[in-house]
């Protein structure tokens, strides 16, 4: 037992020493947890941000000017004022997601109480913005028109029988940098842990060192566990640094919940992901094959985990199927801990599911590993 542990320790140290000299993989790790996270956190918005809007102002009145001025950053770009014939080509070319058409004599009709109609054209292929943005624009226009028509008093007088107190929990400002950034880290954990472990195995096989190890008094389990811990430590460190330095300090994203709990969960997930990586490493015969297999497994795992689009939007059978994939649980508990401040009493089922699937892949990997040596 002591011997086994000592073997695992020293083989792992060897992994770390090897990785330190693999400039390419190391650069990839650093890139993934710094630049990639930063650019996604700051570049990709999941709320309405910078929406491109144009206004066909056929009225050219004070009111129409007021409406145009009401579209402000950060939700909107400054509106382009365009002529009617530019509308269709501009939308075809996706230059604007929204084009608001203010009809001639709009202001006069409002004053006269003729309830004029404005037309809002929405590019309904811009899925993330179209729905939210249309609502925003309708509210903005309504507000401006009301203010214009009846002044401030009119606004307050719309008092309804039941007021709706809408509160956003956990993220009052609906800031998406935290979401994008944290989800980028989560996706990259999957990406890199599978890759590092798989590549470590293939590298040993391509260099012939795996034969060498197996001819020594070592068991395949020891070799695997050594890879698990060594690669796990590297990724876990990168995750911690990325969360604290990149997300909290550089991006300034507020992170709720216990960092320790999240890292503990990540460690569990790494157990799964590196086991999967080793499993893939035993299936692939060469580095390029590993790379292609990797794309086929990791891409869906990431895309369907709920890190990019909410999991409830997927077809039900797919949702159930994804419950068997730990990346879904990883995303679920990452969101619960980092965004909603959840504790262990809430996230333990996800932890458990991750650990169980991880164990299955460890056994599978071990089985393939032993078998692959005989082929």
């Amino acid at each position: 037992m002591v011997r086994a542990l000592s073997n695992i320790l020293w083989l792992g140290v060897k992994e770390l020493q090897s990785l330190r000299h693999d400039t390419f993989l190391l650069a990839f790790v650093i890139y993934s947890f710094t630049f990639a996270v930063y650019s996604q956190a700051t570049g990709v918005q999941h709320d309405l941000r910078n929406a491109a809007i144009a206004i066909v102002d056929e009225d050219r009145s004070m009111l129409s000017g007021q409406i145009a001025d009401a579209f402000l950053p950060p939700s909107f770009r400054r509106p382009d004022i365009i002529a009617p014939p530019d509308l269709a080509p501009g939308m075809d070319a996706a230059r604007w997601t929204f084009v608001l058409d203010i009809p001639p004599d709009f202001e006069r009709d409002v004053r006269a109480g003729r309830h004029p109609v404005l037309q809002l054209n929405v590019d309904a292929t811009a899925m993330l913005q179209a729905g939210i943005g249309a609502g925003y624009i309708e509210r903005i226009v309504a507000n401006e028109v009301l203010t214009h028509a009846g002044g401030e008093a009119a606004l307050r007088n719309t008092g309804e029988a039941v007021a709706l107190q809408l509160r956003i929990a956990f993220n009052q400002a609906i800031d998406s940098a935290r979401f994008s950034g944290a989800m980028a880290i989560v996706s990259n954990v999957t990406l890199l842990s599978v890759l590092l472990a798989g590549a470590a195995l293939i590298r040993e096989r391509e260099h012939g060192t795996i034969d060498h190890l197996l001819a020594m008094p070592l068991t395949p389990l020891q070799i695997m566990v050594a890879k698990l811990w060594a690669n796990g430590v590297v990724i876990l460190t990168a995750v911690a640094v990325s969360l604290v330095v990149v997300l909290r300090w550089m991006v300034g994203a507020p992170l709720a919940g216990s960092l320790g709990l999240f890292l503990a969960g990540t460690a569990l997930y790494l157990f799964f992901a590196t086991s999967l990586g080793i499993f893939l490493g035993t299936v692939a015969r060469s580095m390029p094959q590993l790379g292609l297999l990797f794309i086929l497994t990791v891409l869906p795992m990431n895309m369907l985990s709920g890190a990019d689009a909410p999991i409830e939007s997927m077809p039900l059978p797919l949702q159930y199927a994804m419950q068997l994939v730990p990346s879904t649980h990883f995303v679920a508990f990452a969101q619960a801990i980092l965004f909603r401040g959840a504790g262990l009493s809430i996230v333990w089922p996800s932890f458990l599911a991750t650990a169980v699937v991880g164990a299955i892949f460890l056994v599978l990997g071990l089985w393939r590993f032993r078998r692959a040596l005989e082929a």
Partner: protein
Amino acid sequence: MSAAAAPTVEASGLIHRYKATVALDDVSLMLQAGGTLGVIGPDAVGKSTLLGLLAGARSIQAGRVRVLGGDMAEAAHRRAVSPRIAYMPQGLGRNLYADLTVAENIDFFARLFGQARAERRHRIGELLEATGLAPFPDRPAGKLSGGMKQKLGLCCALVHDPDLLILDEPTTGVDPLSRQQFWELIERIRQRRPMMGVIVATAYMEEADRFDRLVAMHAGRVLASGAPSELRARTATATLEEAFVALLPEAARHGARRLEIPPHRTAEAAPAIVAEGLTRRFGSFVAVDHVSFRIARGEIFGFLGSNGCGKTTTMKMLTGLLPPSEGRAWLFGEPAGGGGLETRRRVGYMSQSFSLYAELTVEQNLNLHARLFHLPRASIQPRVQEMVERFGLLAHRDARAAELPLGVRQRLSLAVAVIHAPEMLILDEPTSGVDPLARDAFWELLVDLSRRQGVTIFISTHFMNEAARCDRISLMHAGRVLASGTPQELQAARGAATLGEAFIGHLREAETDAAVVEAPRAATPPGIGTRRPGGAGRAALRRLLAYSWREALELRRDPIRLSVALIGTALLMLVFGFGISTDVNRLTFAALDRDQTTESRAYLRDFSGSAYFGERPPIEDAAAMWRRLQSGEIVVAIEIPPGFGRDLRAGRPTEVAAWVDGALPFRAETATGYVAGLHARFLAERNPGSTQTAAPAVTETRFRYNQAFKSVYAMVPSTIAILLMLIPSILMALGVVREKELGSITNFYVTPVTRLEFLLGKQLPYVVLSMGNFALMFLMALFVFDVPLKGSLAGLTLGALLYVTAATGIGLVMSAFTRTQIAALFGTAIATMMPATQFSGMLQPVASLEGAGRVMGELFPTGHFMKISVGAFTKGLGFADLLPFLLPLAAFIPVLTMASVLLLRKQER
């Protein structure tokens, strides 16, 4: 030019270095037309570099090379003479394509030299006859034996009637009979083409006697040159091997002396290794065929045979790495493989490939193994120290294993193998590629281990003189042991003068037994008229298509790449198309109804009845609400205060609180909108004809292109754009860099192919394949996802063609400057994945991006094609409407092609 006067090759003052290593240090040589020149010496780097320079495969750093009457530093001259030079790089079948058949390999080379179909067919037939490969035109090159690979390599080299033949260690690792046949073949070709000059590098000194002149090299310098007899006479030695040692500078020769091997005392009772009928099959291929032997303790037992004859497989079975298909083996009386970890502790194994951790230093490697063998902690340091001293590694202690010269590395391997003082050593070709002196030093260590410490040594080799040093040897060929015994016995039994002759005798016998017809004797050597190709343009096109043809063949025979390309695309399309949806529905909600009146229930009924919401069991208290929001079980919580119904009936203002989980910003925004909408509906229902219609103006929202506002209409066309970027670029990147890694890129260096021909030729099959992917995804969009094509099919198809050309162009750029497949793979993945998925408008319109993301989105082809794809499918754009996006897409192609032409080198450094 008149061939007689000018020498074929003339090199002077060549200096070549790789970082710190000097490969060539002021080397000069000359070859007359029709002459043969042997470059001998152990160090592979120097010889290969020299030959690469002469062939024009490497760029000259310093010095002058004139070949066939021109300066090889000039690109124009290289291009002009490359059809007259044939170069076979080092390594068995290194310039061949393993997946192509024998005939296809030769055909490809013939196409590179612009030969027409009839001429090619004629030549292939002739060459196959001449080399005895005629019975196997359809066998893949990868499945040939080492000797046959080298003959095929020669066919490929000779297909264009060269005036200069450059062979780099053509017979290393080939069995002695094939070696003999190979040289006979060269001899016959020379008779047919008397003006052809031949330069050969070799590590087998006994082969060097055939050449007119020799250049002996050591450590990048020329030690001596002259006819073989001159060299022997000058050093007063009998063999070239001895002559070579005598020529070495004093310092290098230090400690060189004749190796004395004390006789082995065969007094032991129990044998160390026993093998009985060991057999190993891989599929239908029998790698080891009923091999039996027994090795006494302290004996040095050798396995002699060519590459691929089953030596390694036998050793793997002994070490337990491979279970035998049949037969049994025992180590120290324990069954091999089943003996558990204890037996492994008594064995040291040195596998054929350099099996140390190249990234670790000498000391780290030794330490690691000491620890893995559980040497007592206190003894680790002294033992490592002892090994370092005994194996002469003191000077290299902190050097990384990868940086060591081959000879030193082998010593380190041995040190590692014996650090735990094993009783038995299994060494798989430990000395291949090592110079004679280092080999002698290595053998001294072995002899010491065997005779002084009684270590049993089982060693494999393809060097005859090493085999002669063993106590007993087995001659192996094609998985079978031909003969066993002491070297003297084997020689005597055959009545042969040398062990090599004895082996050849056994081989001939075995080949007639096995009825493998490999009779190269009858045929005429190649060399019909030297027709040169006609129009330059046609020849260029032929070369381009030669690469396309070959790439397509290889692609067709690689199931993994092909299935990723086709099945992978379909799979990912399904996953993405169904999986990524921004339709927010089935939002989970639960109510905390503190009122429990008809009114409160009416309010909640709107939510439970909505398709956007899915109801969960009601919430008991505030703590539960918070917990359930935190766990993500519910997204929306509605809290109705006590007295809600009473107030409502009384017309007093009251309020409802809705909590929306803000963790996912997009979902939160959408949910907020839904909640507000349902709330408004409740109010309107309670109070028909209310103030709602009094709004002074109404905004009428038109969802253009996608009235139902279903995300599938946007996501499916976007997915096509993403997948048509990711998969073609990665496949392409591997396609080129594979050649660099496998070594067949040399063919591009030394043939008249231009960079543009090479790149476009390689790109063409991938463009075709990618268009197949496009067709597949297009049909899936129509029939699986029910996304109709509303716009121009022609525009979309043209867009796809431009786009996959650009996508494969990105792969080409990547593979032009990366050196390994793995770097190309991940370089391409990094370069394409993020811009394609995040910054090309699938989720967020490019127009809304900021900073680096915006720049990436604009300067990357995906965004442009996504507009075409979404435009043609969903926006219903016609060809003319698509033109503005087609043009920028087309602009990527020349830019990317130029970039890869500039980045790709026509010569190795």
